[in-house]
Structure formats: structure tokens, C-alpha cells
């Protein structure tokens, strides 16, 4: 099953206004522990977009103190789980697979969403939650060390490469990458399937949305086909290397001081929110 985006959803250009929509009843679970570190800002961004979240230590799920079944959105946030030992995201994925696999399969079979950002994407990839062709949870992609050989932190522009529930109404995201292993690699066959099934959600691009064509620094890590994020075959799982949650406000954007001056000279109102909020509104919109 593929969840297609509404064809005629209005394109939101530039910066969105703060939503007045109420909080939804469904809750999100944000994984934590063992070096995951972006849980607080992830909780904050979800709250601003209209969804309450619990930050849950993986050990509390394993011990049964918390249950995945109480939640509708599962988020693996950014971080450095296990210090990237044995490969970024690998050790945390092993801990999930070795302890929580049955619960996770049940969650995936429900009408639920999963989001993995940065280290979270690396965990999803090692769990095989993306691409998950035909619900087959195998490791089909790898997020290898960056071409530059080390962690790199900088703002990147992202272009939606598919119409799906996550990308709806997004013209461009502009947010930081901060990873050492984000260089997406897969077999030619897998790449073809990702393209055919429109599973490439976001690609690195220039500020004017023209493709990065692998060129540094627009494509910061050497990812094949400039891929920054992909969905699962059923569209309900999104993995993304860059961090939209770290730039939820206008003043978080790298170029905000210049944009502010330009807007003021034109008599435009300077926004408070950034364009990156739309991604989270989309996820939450799925439950509305």
C-alpha cells in the first residue's frame, strides 16, 4: 500500500505561519538512552506542531515499564548512540532487534508512523525499517562514513523528491546536517526500486532547488543521487539525515540575519517560525 499525498494540496511557499490547530490526542514516543541526544528538541518540535510526546528510555520498553502500543508515532531521534561503535546506529538497532522486535512488528502493522532523524535514520536502516520492500525488513541500504572522512555540521537545502504524506506542501527544507556517517549507499537494484516506488523523500540541492549532483558542500556526504532521506515502501516510515527539528524557528536558520534585513527593507513581516515545521505538521496531520 502506498499512501499518496493529496494531489492538489496548496504549496506553501517560504515560511509558514504558526498553526492555531489544537493538540491531537494521539501521542508520540521518542526513544532515548545510550547516547541518543536530540530527544528534547524533538519533543519540543512535535509539541509546537500539535502532538504531545513521551521520551522513553529503551530500557523502560525492554523492562515493560512502557509499551509501544500506547503510541501512534515512534521517533528515533538524533544522537550518537553507543558512540557510533560498530557503525553508526548499529549497536542501538541490535539492542532493539534483540529485545523489542515483536512489539515493533506489531506497531508497524498498525496504522502508525515512524520517523528517524540522523542517528535515528541510521538505526532504521540497520533495522531494515527502510526501505522495507514488501514488508521485508532487511538491511538494504547503508549510511557509510562521509566522503570527507569526518563529521560535518552545516546547513543544507533539501528538495522533496516525492509526493507523500511527509513532503506535502513543502517547497524546500533548510536545516543542519551534523553527522559522520550519512553517505547513503545501496545496490543498483535497490536504487532502482527506491526510484520506481517513489521512496526517495528528500534530496540535497542548491538553494534554488537545482540538484546538488553529488557536489560538495551541497551534498555534504557523497550520498548516491543526493539522497538525504527515504521512506519505507508503504510510506509510513521516514528516515532523514538532516535535522529539521534543530531549525524550527526563523532565528535558527543559518542565513536569517541576511533574510531579516532583506525583508525589513521590503517592508515584510519577519516570521518567527521556519519552513521546517511543515514536515512535523505533515506527520501530525496524518492523525487529524
Amino acid at each position, binding site marked *: 500500500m502506498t499512501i499518496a499525498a493529496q494531489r492538489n494540496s496548496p504549496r506553501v511557499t517560504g515560511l509558514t505561519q504558526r498553526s492555531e490547530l489544537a493538540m491531537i490526542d494521539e501521542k508520540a514516543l521518542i526513544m532515548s*538512552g545510550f547516547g541518543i541526544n536530540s530527544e528534547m528538541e524533538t519533543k519540543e518540535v512535535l509539541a509546537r506542531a500539535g502532538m504531545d510526546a513521551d521520551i522513553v528510555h529503551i530500557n523502560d520498553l525492554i523492562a515493560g515499564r512502557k509499551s509501544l502500543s500506547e503510541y501512534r508515532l515512534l521517533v528515533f531521534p538524533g544522537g*550518537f548512540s553507543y558512540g557510533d561503535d560498530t557503525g553508526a546506529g548499529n549497536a542501538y538497532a541490535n539492542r532493539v532487534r*534483540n529485545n523489542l522486535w515483536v512489539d515493533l512488528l506489531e506497531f508497524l502493522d498498525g496504522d502508525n508512523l515512524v520517523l528517524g532523524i540522523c542517528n535515528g535514520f541510521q538505526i532504521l536502516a540497520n533495522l531494515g525499517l527502510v526501505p522495507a520492500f514488501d514488508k521485508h525488513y532487511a538491511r*538494504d541500504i547503508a549510511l557509510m562514513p562521509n566522503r570527507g572522512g569526518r*563529521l560535518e555540521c552545516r546547513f543544507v537545502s533539501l528538495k522533496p523528491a516525492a509526493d507523500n504524506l511527509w513532503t506535502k506542501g513543502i517547497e524546500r527544507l533548510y536545516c543542519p546536517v551534523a553527522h559522520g556517517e550519512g553517505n547513503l549507499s545501496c545496490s543498483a537494484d535497490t536504487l532502482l526500486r527506491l526510484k520506481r516506488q517513489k521512496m526517495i523523500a528528500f534530496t540535497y540541492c542548491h538553494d534554488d532547488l537545482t540538484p546538488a549532483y553529488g557536489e560538495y558542500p551541497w551534498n555534504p556526504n557523497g550520498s548516491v543521487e543526493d539522497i538525504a532521506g527515504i521512506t519505507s515502501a508503504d510510506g509510513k516510515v521516514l528516515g532523514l539525515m538532516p535535522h529539521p527539528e*534543530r531549525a524550527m524557528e526563523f532565528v*535558527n536558520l543559518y542565513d536569517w540575519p541576511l533574510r531579516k534585513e532583506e525583508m525589513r527593507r521590503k517592508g515584510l513581516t*519577519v516570521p518567527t517560525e521556519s519552513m521546517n515545521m511543515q514536515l512535523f505538521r505533515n506527520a501530525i496531520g496524518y492523525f487529524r
Partner: protein
Amino acid sequence: MESCVHRIEVRYTTDPRLKMRTSRIRSLGFAVDELHLIDVYTLYTSTRDFSKTELADIGTQLVNPVVQKFLADTPTQIPFDYAIEVGFLPGVTDNVGATARQTIEDFFSLKFAEGEAVYTSQLFLVSGTLSPAELQKLAVTLANPLVNRVLIKTRTEYGNKGMDPVVPVVHLDELPTAETVNLDIEDMELARIGKEGIVDSLTGQRRGPLALDLAQMRAIRDNFAAQGRMPTDIEIESLAQTWSEHCKHTIFASAMDDDVPNGLYKTFIQAATNKIRAEKGDKDICVTVFTDNSGSIIFDDTYLVTHKVETHNSPSALDPFGGALTGIVGVNRDTIGFGLGAKPCINFYGYCVGDPDCDPALFRGKNKSTPILSPRQILDGVVRGVGVGGNCSGIPTPQGWCLFDNRYVGKPLVFAGTVGVMPLEHAGRKLYEKEAAPGDFIVVAGGRVGKDGIHGATFSSEALDHASPVTAVQIGDPITQKKLSDVIVNEARDQELYRSITDNGAGGISCSVAEMAKECNGCHVYLDKVPLKYHGMAPWEIWISESQERMTLAVPPEKLDSFMSLMQSRDVEATVIGKFSDSGKCVVEWHGKVVMEITLDFLHDGAPKKHLKTTYLKTTYPEPESFCPDRLDATMRSMLGRKNLCSKEFISIQYDHTVQGGHVLGPVQGAGRVQSLATLTKVVPGSKKGVGLSQGIFPSYSEIDSYLMAGAAIDTAIRGLIAIGVPLDTIAILDNFCWCSSDEPERLGQLKRAAQGCYDYAVQFGTPFISGKDSMYNDFSGFDAEDNPVKVSVPPTLLISSIGIHADVAKSVSMDAKIEGDLVYVIGETSEELGGSEYFALLGGIGNTIPKLDATLLKARYGRLTDALTHELVASAFPVSHGGLGTALAKVAIAGQLGMDITIPSAMRPDYYLFSESLGRFVVTVAPDHKRAFERCCGADAQLLGRVGGKNLRITSDKLLLDLPVTELTNAYKAPFRGY
């Protein structure tokens, strides 16, 4: 059963880093065609073995099969010429090994028995033609002999068998005990024990420096003689730790000459803060100053922010990566250990190193033995260390700097700082206050204790020479600390599970427990309860070990069960090691026997007082002889390409500066990506406020006049924050003195003048000191290649770090020129002040006239600029600092990728005008519409220089001086560290 060893080798089928790794090694001069890297896991078990199938399962868990392959008990066979395997020495923390072990335990639902482990190593397979000597040199580049073991094989030796499995198990004798030490000996021998350490009765070797002088040794002898007994080794070691320069700051605490009877710290640092706080009255911003692990100021009605800057110089000289890593995670613990636990929210760094292009042939020993590391190796290592520490811990590292001077070749300075955030109160409890109570359990949580870091505190109190202990190096494990930090700050603190907390840094538990014991007046420790990395450590070693990632807490008996089960549920090891008491004593037991019993009075205040004498001699340097060139294009290119002025963006971008989502003004700014001098970060979600950080440091002024040097550092630290819109009355500062040869009256004379400068300028600006640290012996003593003794001392270095609160970050300004047609102003006077300047250094001289400042005048000026910024009249602002107005203008243009047309006054020599380092100045750009309002606000301070526009930076006085495309300036600014 017999012990079982299995070896799993992991490699990429197509290694994405191969090209970069090979080219980095080639750039260091090795004729290497390809440098492959294989990750090796060595499994060591004694209670069970793994079958072939099980090894295959383990291998699968350790790779991503899309891009990686593994081989179990089979050597990797690819084309290569030499194999170099780099593993850890016994006892060195192996983080990856520990993770692999947990994965295996999870997968098979088993637990490794005591002594069983997974060890990791890296196997480099080298293609190329290298001589044996070159091969050795390559191995040294890939490994650090202090922490690594290296095995080299040729292709033939490697054959079909591959490398030999190595299990780096620590073998130590069983159950050592505390020994008594006879101090009833000749003064000379007494002094020798103080300098070189106690003689170990088993090995006959000295155990390493105590850094106790003869007077201190006599005081110890007399104290125990009065009790009619001999001290134990653990008692002497403990006193050495507590009395060390590193912990007690004896030089800053001692009486000096006739006019400073209370010592520099009380007279100039603490007194400045007290005076400022009294003068500010209701507007006092300080919460806790000097007494806790960090200093703190008010953020808003609900939150406070903390700041602390530490140095980790000696460890970084020996092991740059490990030293810098433990430096940053160590200062993170000063945040977690502030009050009842603040959350680390911003990291800060600063490096003083030698020119990475020079290779000083200096040695710690004679006959070219133990060469010092090259500045390039040190730079690479410390940059990586602080990066790994911050990145792995999820703490953004936006603000920092890097300064080059060849007087830092023997001992680099590595500054590491952390800002924390904490609510002032939780459920009616003031979180910035803490007090252990008699009867509370002493609990140590976090990592285990090993031999790493023994004598760290005493060794950093001595000059670095051939006797520097190798175990003084610690290896950090940021993830262990992250787990500990999360459970403390996010859970245990607000569940009120403990009454007091402090970090284990220098001196380990000997210092942390004894320090907390002051809160309740006593402690009783059962040292055999302390969890160890391996058996066989002597009690004195356990007591003073500086193994990382540990906090000490005071847990009330009724909270112990909740505390311990919470720790267990978060995979954090916590152990009760004793009880706090009110006995007035620090008592330590080892397997039922008391091995230490010292009164807290003697432990903390028993060190004999010193009275230091200083002299001050003004040095005069020849003024550089030069004439001003007709055109300054070439000069400007050279200035922008100077290592102290050019872009070190390669550091900024490998440090995550966006985690926690508070990025506002980052380490590089504008379309042209220029490194800023101040950064701004939101630390409380939903608040409009932000935390600004900046710094000032002018070691090149120190030898000319350390008093004005201190003034320059304070003004620059403050001005960086003023430029982004942080008002003066919210700013606090921190002092870090890194001096040299502090046993010489001349150096102490410079120190006294610098401290006097700190007092005067801090009081005039009204910016309180909230925390500080000093490191007094940054000297290297060794030999050159001909065995001539060489001493290299750092220039007296004072880092002033500033922290301030921005009221509304949306009104902050970045440094880049923004819109064509904007007006360019300089705020502040330029005088001919080029002594110690980057320009004089370019000309090959030093000079004598360093910048003076009138803080009262500047205070009024900064207030006016703050008004202009608050009213949003300014489009960009950038402080004029190292390199003067000329380089500041160029950087503003580069950042905006916009040209400028500038006219400068013709009264002064134009090169002097452009490159003088006069203080108190800013370059600002202003929209033409705001011209009148801005000029009304800033008054005569603001001088209009020209306009933003075009593609070139043009500077004219009575003639055209400079006309350079911004693209060319950009290239000059970015070229020196391209490829790093």
C-alpha cells in the same frame, strides 16, 4: 576451561574513506598508494567458547552487509605490502570493545564473566614502497605509544596466517596493601620523595611526582610525628593531591610581596567580584561564584546559566586526542556537578599551539629519546578530541578559537569550557545549593577505576619533562558519561534522590570525597568497595586515580534503594563506597583495616603558607623598521593569510554546533562563511533570550606589559558580546591564567601585574568574575638533537571568557555586510598601537606600544551601541580585534561577499591605521534609512568610512591604497588551512 580467543575482521567492500585517508597520509610525506583499514574484534572468553555458526552471528551483528564484510578467524586477503595493527595497551579503555560485548550479550542472552572481554584494534594494510624506518614513522603517525600497541608485518610475514591475536589483559599482583613510609629522614631524601615520589617496595621504582616541596614534606612529617606514627603511602598521596597547585592554587592563594598579604586570588579576583556585586545591588547578576564547580549567573526569573573553563595542557602534550577529549568531558562534569546538577548546553574551546608547518626537533630525553609530538599532530589530535567529546555528548560547540605561536611547541594550551542551564528551583528546593549530611551514603556513579590518570593533578603542577608519568593520560568514554549525565540531570535530580554531588576530576575520589566531606565535616570510606576495571590496584592508586566519567553523590539512607534502582535501569553503575560523617576526619579502610586517618583541618588547611616574592622588569623591544608601501594589496593578502587571522573553519564544521536546537549566531557567518568572534545560542525553549559567548586573549602583549594585556583581554571578551547585542550589565567573565616558570620572581611579577589589571578593568566595566582557573608551570624541559638542554616556556597567557544574556535574539546581528548601499562605520578611535600586533609580527618585530584603554569611556560607548542594536538600527557589527581595522573590514566584506568603498583619514601612516590593534572599536554597517537615527544614537564615536557595494574592497586615503576583488580576499583568508 582453557581461554578461547577469536578474531573477527571487518572491512568495507568499497571503503568510502579510502581516498581521503590515503591522501591525508600522503600529504604527511609517506609514499603510500593505498591505506586500507580493517576493524578487528578480538573475543576473549574463559567460561565458554563460540562455535563457527555463533561467530558468524556475531560477525553479522558487527557489520552492515550492504557495504561491509567480515571474516571470523580468517585473515583478510587483499593486495598490500605491509600490515600495521594498532590496538590498545592493557588497561586502556576500549569503548568499541565494550559496545561489541553488550551486543553479543544481548544477542545470546548471556553475560561475560569477570576477565572476559572484546578488544578492538585497527589493522592498516598499506600498499606502497616504504623503508623500515618510514614504516616505523608511519606507525607512530597512526598510533600513540602511550595508549597504543603496534604490530608490524610485511606481506610475507603476514602470509596465510595474518596477524597474531593479542589479548591486552592487565596482569597485576594480587591484593596489594597500604605501606607505611618513613619520613624521619634527611631533608635531601625528603625533598626527593616530594619531587619524584615514594619508592615502591616491590619494584624499587619511584611511583611518580608528588609535587610537594620540602616545607610541605616537613609539615607532613611533623603532623604524623605528633601522632606518634608513620604515615601510609595513601595518606601522603592523598595530601599531595589535595595540596597540589592544581587543586589548591597555592600561587594564587599565597601572600605576595608586602602589598598583597592575602594573595592574588582574594585581592584581585574575588575582591573585584565582591565590589562589583555590591555596586550593582539589586541588579547583581551572580548566583554562585567561585565556590562551586562552575560559576553561575541569572538567565531569567526561572533559570540560571553556569560557565566554567578548564585547561588540560599537560595531558594534551602527551596524548592530544585523549587529553583534549578528557578535557572537554571533564569540564562537562563541572556543569553536571554544579549545584544539584546543571544540564550542559554549550561547549567552548581554545587552543594555543605551535605553527603546524614547523617541526621542532625536541626530545624529552637525551640521545633523541622520546621526541615531542609535532604541532600538526597536536593540533589534529586536540581538534578531534574536543569534537568527539562534544559531538558524542550532544552538546553544541559553537564558540572557540585557535592561536599559533612557537612558544607553545613544548606545551600546548588546551582550554575547554562548558555552559550549563538549570532551573533556580524545583518544587521549592534551590537547585544551586547542596549539602551532604552525616549519615548520607557516599555513592560513586559512572565509569570504573583503573590505573589511568594517576598523578594527573600533581603532574600538571610540574613542568613537563622525561619523568612525566605515562599513566597520567586518561581515555574518555563520552557515552558512559552521557548515560550518567542524562539520568542525573533529567531524572535523579528532580526526584530528589541525593543531597549533594560533585565531579571526579583531578585527584579522583580522594579530592571529590574530601571536598564534599567539608559540607558535613567528615567521611568514612571503604576503599575495597570501589568498582575496578581490573584486580590488583593498590589502595593509594584507587584513591587518587583519575579514571573518567565518575560523579560522587551524597545519598540519604531513605533514598538509597530508589537511587540505585534508577541507576541500574539506565545501565549506569553506582556503588556505595562509604558514609559521610561529622567526625572531623577523613577515614579510609581497606579490607577492614584503616589505612588513612587524617583530620579534615590538616587535609585542607595543613599546607604551610608561602610568601612569594616578585620582581618586575620592563623589557624594551626594538621597533620594527619599515616604510609604508604605496599600495597595501599584498600586505592585506598576507595579513588575511596569517594563521592567527585566517579561517579555521575546518574546526568549526567538524563540531556539531546545532544540536539541542538553539543555534542563532554560529561559528561561521554570512554567505562568505567567516569565523565570528562571538556566538549566540538559545538554551531555554520558548524563551526569547539567548546566551552569548566570546573571549579575549593576547599572549603577544604579555612580555611588553601584562597589565595592559589583561585589559585587552577583558575589553575584547566584553566587546565581542556587545557587537551581537548583549548588554554590558548582563555580562560576566572568567579568568584562566596559563603561566610559565612560576617559581621565578620575574614571572610572578608579570602575574601580579596581570592580576592587578584584571581587578581594575573588571571593576571599571562592572563585569564580575564568576569562575577561574590557573595552570602555573607550562614549561617544557628537554633536549635538542645535539643533547643541549632546552627549555621552552609558553608566553604568559590569560584567557578571559565572557558570557552574557541577550534579551531578544531576534534583534541580534551577525557580522556580514548585507545589502549594497549600506553605510560602513568604524566606532571608536584608532591610535598608533602596534606593539605585539599581528602586523608587527608580519614585519618581523614586536614593538612596545600596546593598546591602552579607558574603560569608563568605553562603557558609555558600548551602552550607546547597545541602544542602537536594541532599536534595530544596525545591519551588521563586528569587533575590531587581532589584525586591526583593515582585516576587520575585509572580514565583514568576505562574510557578506560584497565589496566596500572605504576612505580612511590620512593623518596616520595608512598601514598603521589599518592594522593597529587599538581597543574599543567596531565595524558596523547601517541601512541608509537609519543613518540619522544611528548617528544620533552613537554620536561622535561613529565615523562614516564608506559604503557597501561592488565586487571589490577599495580603500583610499589621499590616494588609492588597496583595490582587491572580494573573491581574492576570500581566497587569501581561506587558503592556509584548506585540506585540513
